[in-house]
Every structure is written in C-alpha cells, then in structure tokens.
C-alpha cells in the first residue's frame, strides 16, 4: 500500500516560456529591492532578507522546480522542510535578539 506521489495518468500542463520569463523578471525586481533596502539601513536589510528572500525561494520552488505541478506529498515534504528551517530561525533569534 504505497503512497501516490503524483499521478502519471493525467497530463501535466507545463507553463510556456512567457511564465518563466515573467517569474525571472519578478525575481530580478525583488533582488533589486533587496539591494536597495541594504543601502537604507541594517534593519531594513534584515527585514528585507527575512521576507523577500523566502518569497524569491518560493517562486523558484513553485515554477522553476515545478512544485506547482507536483502532488500533495511533495508539497507537504517541502513545507515540512521550510517549516523546520523557520523554527530554527525563530530559536536562533531567541538568542541573538535578547543578548
């Protein structure tokens, strides 16, 4: 009784080049925002890194790594991994932010 990772029966719709180029441009824009924020102040840079970087990573996962077209098990696995990372960050901040 195995888990179904994703269905091979249903044809998967792949996005066209337009989508990939659009996402790529969005990633460039977000990178530009991050660089800009880093010139404003350290606080802005940190908040930018903590919010925009996961967003960028999410876009890469979702489109370039095809997560959008995978079954629920893969999505859960990625969520567990990212959730674990988030908890690690929170616990690290319990030290750094209160030193």
């Amino acid at each position, binding site marked *: *009784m*195995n888990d179904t990772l994703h269905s091979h029966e249903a044809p998967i719709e792949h996005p066209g080049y337009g989508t990939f180029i659009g996402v790529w441009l969005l990633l460039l824009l977000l990178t530009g925002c991050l660089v800009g924020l880093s010139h404003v102040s350290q606080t802005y840079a940190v908040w930018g890194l903590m919010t925009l970087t996961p967003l960028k990573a999410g876009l890469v996962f979702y489109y370039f790594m095809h997560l959008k077209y995978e079954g629920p098990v893969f999505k859960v696995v990625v969520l567990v991994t990212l959730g674990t990372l988030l908890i690690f960050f929170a616990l690290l901040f319990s*030290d750094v*932010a209160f030193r």
Partner: protein
Amino acid sequence: MSGTHATTPEPSYLVDTGTRTGVLAWLTTTDHKRIGLLYLYSMMTFFFVGVGIGLVMRLVQLTTFQKLITAQTYNALFTVHGVIMIFLFVVPGLPAIFGNFFLPILIGAKDVSFPRLNLASWYFFIAGAILAVLSLFTGGGAPDTGWTFYAPFSLKTGTNVSLAVFAAFVLGFSSMLTGINFITTIHRMRAPGMHWFRMPLMCWALYSTAWIQLLATPIVAITLLLVILERFFGIGIFDPAKGGDPLLYQHLFWIYSHPAVYIMILPAMGAISEILPTFAKRPIFGYKAIAFSSMSIAGVGSLVWAHHMFTSGMSGMALMIFSLLTMVVAVPSAIKVFNWVSTLYKGSIDFQPPLLFALTFIFLFCIGGLTGVMQGALAINVHIHDTYFIVGHFHYVMFGGTGMALFAALLYWFPKMFGKMYSKKAIYASWFPMFIGFNMLYFGMMILGMMGMPRRYYVHLPQFHTMHVIATVGSWLLVLGLVIFFATLLYATFKGEKAEDNPWGGVTLEWTIPSPPPLENFDVIPTITRGPYHFEQEEHR
C-alpha cells in the same frame, strides 16, 4: 501474512550469482544486504581503532604511563577518538548496517528504492573515512580541536582541521543519501497490506531517523564548508576579530549534532522494540505510542541543540527556552522505556543473549537519559559543564545506549544475516567484564566530574587519582569483554553451527525467509493481513 518460503531454495545473498565474483562482486554490489555487511565490516574496523585510542587515553591517566604520549598528541587523540566514534561508528551504525540489511525485508520488499545510490552512499562513507585518516598525517598533523571543531580555535590552529572537516562534509553526504533512500523506500516499497501501523517499529525508527538525516545534515555540511572558507580566505563569518560570531558556529554545529544524537539512538530504540516482543513472546505494549514517540523524539529533539551552549554566553531568554525544551524531549523517551518494561510484564520470558543486551541497553540508557535531564537544569549544567560528568553521561547514552543496542541487534539478527549460530555461553561470558568494566569506567567518570575534574585534560590533580585508576581498570575489563564478544561472533561466522530460519520464534517478516536470506529476499512479495507482533496466533499454531 502469507507464506513466503520458496519451493526450491534460491541461493543465499552470500553466494556470488552475477558476472563478478569475490571481492569485486562485493565492491560493486547493489544488494542491500551485502551493502549492510560492507558497512558492518568497515564500521567494526573503525570501532576498534576508536577503542584502541580510548584505551591509550585512559592509560595516560596512570602514573606509570604518563609519559606514553605528549600533551599535544593527547589533544589529537581525543579529537580523533571523537571523530571516528561519532562520524564513522555511532551515527551511521544501526541505520547503515541493520537499516540497509533489514528495512526492505521488514516491509516485504526486494531491495531499497535506489540500490545504486545505496552503494554510492557506502563509497561516500569510505571516501570520508579515508580523508579523515589522511588528515592525521598531512598538513599540520592531526586536528587538536576536539570533534566539535569550535571556532575561533579551529580557524586559527595550524593542525589539519580543513581536511578533517571536509571528511565530515563527505560523510554527511553518505548520511543524507541513505536518509533519502530510506524515506522513499518506506513510502513506496511497502508490501501490499502493510499499512503504516502494520510496519515493525524498527521501520518507524528508521523513518524518523531518515528525516533527521535529511533535514539536519545539510546544516552542518554548510557550516563545515564555511570553516574551510574562513580558514582559506578569512571571510569572517565566525571569527570575532573580523566581526564574525563564534556562537553562530556553535548554534549551527549543534543544530545538526544534537539531532545526530537521535540519529544514533532512534534506530537503537527500534531494534530494542523488535527484540523485546520476540523474547517476551507477546505483542509490544503501546505500539502506536512507541511509533509516535519516535517521530516526536525526531521533532522535539531537533529543537534542543543549544543545551550544549548553556555556559557560552548566549541570551537568558534562549537559556530558558532551550532548558524547557530539553526537559520536554525526555517525555517521548520515557514513553518508550515504560512501554518496553510493560511489554516484559507477564510475558513468557525466553532469556537469550539478545534479550540480555537489550535489558542492558535499557538500564544503561536510563542512567544516560536521566543524567541528561539533570543537565537540562541550568544551575546544574553550569556546575558540571566541560567536566568528566559530561563524558560519562554521553558514553552512557552513546555506548551504553546505542552501542549495547547495536550488540543486541547483532546478536538478534546474526543467525539471519550469516545463517550461523554463535556460542551463547561465550556471549554471556563476554557480558560480565563488559558490564562491570563499563560502569567502573563511565560511572567513575561521572563521579570525577562531580568532583570537578575537567574533560580533555592531559594531567590531573592528586585528589582525582583514585577514581582515575578505577576508571582505567574498568576500561581494561570493558575491552576484554569486547574482545570475547567479537571473537565469538567472528568464530561463529566461519565455524558456527548452522542456524535455523527462525531460531528465536520471531513473527516479523525476516523470520519467514531462509537464513541467510536469498538474493531477492522473497520469491513472492508477501501480502500483509495483520500487525507485526501477533504472538497469540503463533502460540495457537
């Protein structure tokens, strides 16, 4: 479960049936059982090197042998002892040997999901081991940092830290690939009818372990790469002189290395959960509680890393949070112990060597675990941090726990793996010096720690000498026990009597196939119709 015996016996996996024969057949095998044995042989070699180094470190504490080695060599020895025992023996120990050998059989599969990746994992393991050995004799010589490679000392020392941490990096790949393989195997390869709650508990333990291997190992891998980059290019991540944060290194190191403790102990607990029902002749008590406790140990155990850093100067808030979480992780461990003891209660106990070592595991692990909870309390931790108490405590967990469980598992599955039976009397004879020596050595260390003896010291003050002598004599007894134990098994491998297919009366799938198992384990993939520990039906038959 349906019958799985072949009508005409297939040749065992130990017989070369492919185009290659001899050593070449072993070095290119993709059979999970052979790969398990490759790990077994290589790890036992590393284990005895580690034991030898430990023995020398103990000898130095005796007046007669004080000049045996220099202080610098002593620093190198405790580093190498730690690196070998942690990275080459205890971390990969049970999952790589028994996970590889038995996971597919326990779930009714013919092999793991990715057999070639499995062999690649072993080659990564051996490559990492070779690099670790090379680091002792090249560059500035053996690293003297301790196995933790703490910054900023590891960034400054002239010894060959770069190669040693690169070795650990390569070994990490072996661990991650094994983790991926096991997770996929458990999800995809279970026999028809084997629901999640029909899996033997060893599989649950391996599944939890594999998740830790997959999620935590990349963190230490990147951290170790940063150490190399900092040593070569001075990038200033961890070096305070360059604006770096040495505590960040400790955090990143322990984010992996504490869960690594659970990589070591969870499969050990899985093996114990297999052994106890077989020798109590009754179903395990609290199957689901044990299965879920494995998962919660993996989860909560990943969040307690900073209890290794209570005296490092991190914030008071972090101290409180990590102290609390450390106490919490004791709960699922205790659930397991209570369930094991309840399994034995009113069981029809068949006292055999694997049970003796399983009970030894429970006793020693409880001492190790409870002294661990003690250290979760901040005030006690400050008093005993970096003393021999810590060394005694983690040897109770690692050796008394994982080591004894590995021995128990080896005794339990040896007849299945090799098709031979060992001398039970010789194994009992090995247990006595091993048990007495173990407690003299490591309980002695805990007393020394309480008295104030710091760890990693080449010499000691006169008031500590008596306990040092007791601990050293204990180490001799321990080694004597180990030699008898492994000599017995080695002898049995060549000259042992032929073992029955099911010498212990076990009811999980491995006992339904011949000893040693045929190449593809099952002629016909079994259909599972019930849970793994149904002894009532066996008795009825």
